[in-house]
């Protein structure tokens, strides 16, 4: 039996495969396709202290090898989320990571405090959504702001804290170091790359929000590079993501330094993608005679 377990901040995951926040709801919509028990973790869509309506439509657009989204973090607010989404996820033998968003530090703290008494395993703090005007990315593009919110959240969080980093920065290693210095237990990257698409016949942006976040296989090489740079800069574990479609992609991220990985936009393309990545990793370990998946972490030369 090969060992696929990984550990982040003292929490053991049965395998390193997670879902990218915002691409899997809270699992309800994908339970028809995927046995959630087989996932390392379900990472939920971002949830705020109150319900957010999100942006006007069109909110999504396709681009070469990927897609743009500007959903704007539509969510039902933490109270409904705890009552409905967390209750649903409690039925499953998988780890639950809740993605937390907010406009102000107080918003984030309110959510974090309410999650303190739940069975949630870890918190992922969204400081990198490019599609909302206040909060979110405003905290994720400057080292001092990132350090401040990380410190504040850590003061109130009962669960380990993952800071989800934006790729829309000059130096990802500086951001990774800032999160680590402020007490983050782990970091996850990359969130989407800010992008735009223009309809040349209408002379208009395709997305109502004009810009959106790009995801999908086209961004994978950028994400692998950033995960590698972050892994060189910090000691805390990294959850790597950005265009993962197959087990080969996932293994690439782990070799670059990720302890775990997340499948994001590819859930929309292939609703079975997460499970196929889990199975593919097992097959790779078998064929390559790898005893422990952790032997692959950061092994790139």
């Amino acid at each position, binding site marked *: 039996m090969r060992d696929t377990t990984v550990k982040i901040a003292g929490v053991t995951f049965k395998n390193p495969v997670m879902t990218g926040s915002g691409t899997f709801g809270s699992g309800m919509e*994908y339970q028809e396709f995927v046995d959630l028990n087989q996932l390392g973790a379900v990472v939920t869509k971002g949830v705020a202290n109150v319900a*957010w309506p999100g942006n006007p439509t069109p909110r999504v657009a396709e681009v*070469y090898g990927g897609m743009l989204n500007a959903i704007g973090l539509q969510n039902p607010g933490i109270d409904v989320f705890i009552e409905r989404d967390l209750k649903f996820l409690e039925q499953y033998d998988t780890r639950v990571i809740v993605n937390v968003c907010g406009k102000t530090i107080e918003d984030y703290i309110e959510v974090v405090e309410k999650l303190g008494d739940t069975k949630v395993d870890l918190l992922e703090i969204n400081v990198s959504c490019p599609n909302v005007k206040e909060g979110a990315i405003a905290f994720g593009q400057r080292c001092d702001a990132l350090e401040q919110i990380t410190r504040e959240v850590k003061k109130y969080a009962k669960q380990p804290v993952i800071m989800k980093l934006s790729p829309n920065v000059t130096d990802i290693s500086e951001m990774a170091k800032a999160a680590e210095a402020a007490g983050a237990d782990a970091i996850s990257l990359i969130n989407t790359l800010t992008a735009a698409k223009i309809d040349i016949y209408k002379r208009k942006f395709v997305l109502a929000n004009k810009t959106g976040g790009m995801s999908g*296989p086209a961004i994978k090489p950028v994400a692998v590079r950033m995960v590698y740079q972050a892994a060189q800069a910090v000691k805390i574990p990294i959850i790597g993501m950005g265009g993962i479609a197959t087990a080969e992609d996932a293994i690439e991220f782990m070799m670059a330094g990720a302890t775990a990985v997340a499948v994001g936009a590819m859930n*929309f393309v292939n609703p079975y993608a997460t499970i196929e990545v889990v199975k593919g990793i097992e097959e790779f370990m078998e064929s390559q005679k790898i005893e422990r998946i952790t032997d692959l972490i950061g092994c790139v030369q």
Partner: protein
Amino acid sequence: MAGKKKVLAKVVKQEQIANGIFDLWLQTDLAKEAASGQFVGVYPRDKSNLLPRPISICEVKKEESILRLVYRVQGEGTKEFSQLEPGEDIWILGILGNGFSKEEGKGKKVLLMGGGIGVPPMLQLAKELEAESTVILGYRNEELFLKKEFEPYGKVLTATEDGSVGIKGNVMNVIEKEQPEADLIYACGPLPMLKAIKEYAAKKNIPAYLSLEERMACGVGACLGCVCKTTKKDHHSHVDNARICTDGPVFLAEDVLI
């Protein structure tokens, strides 16, 4: 319900039935679950075009496991579909969406209104309804695709934008002229047409079911890309935003803000 699946469907036949409009017959077990107003996601093979294309179901033949899709070539993905040959396989995701409520039309005078590429989904509905149907179809020009196939199911009236056949204008011009009696409306078509029907139905105080469209990603209710403003609290996010792919695509006109 057997649940949603991503499966390989086999192309039975395909032909062009009007300029840029294609008639694709697929064999798939998903047909057994399908009903009017629902749709499938069709995947291009070219991996640079990742997302499934939402295409409404034009006709279902359950006993032969056939789904008929009539679509317009709109971009790279649908252009690729238009080149599919009999015997080829294509990945589809389905069955998606809620479909039309037929029970409500039972024994009533109903209007089925289809405009442009909104015509195809009305065909399966016309077949399923046990009602006194008047079908109003709006086209650009004399290429009246599918029109003949509606004739066994009710009185068919047409409008063309260029005035070449039927009444010049759109489906609302047909209503103005013919003043058909109706207890209930079902409609699919471009947004200005659906807005006009919503207004008309409110004035006449009759219910109207509208099939909406929006740019979609997942098709299964997870990404929250294809929302529509609603007059009531939606059950997902409680922010008056219904998901067209799962809460729709068919909505009662009075429930949506379009």
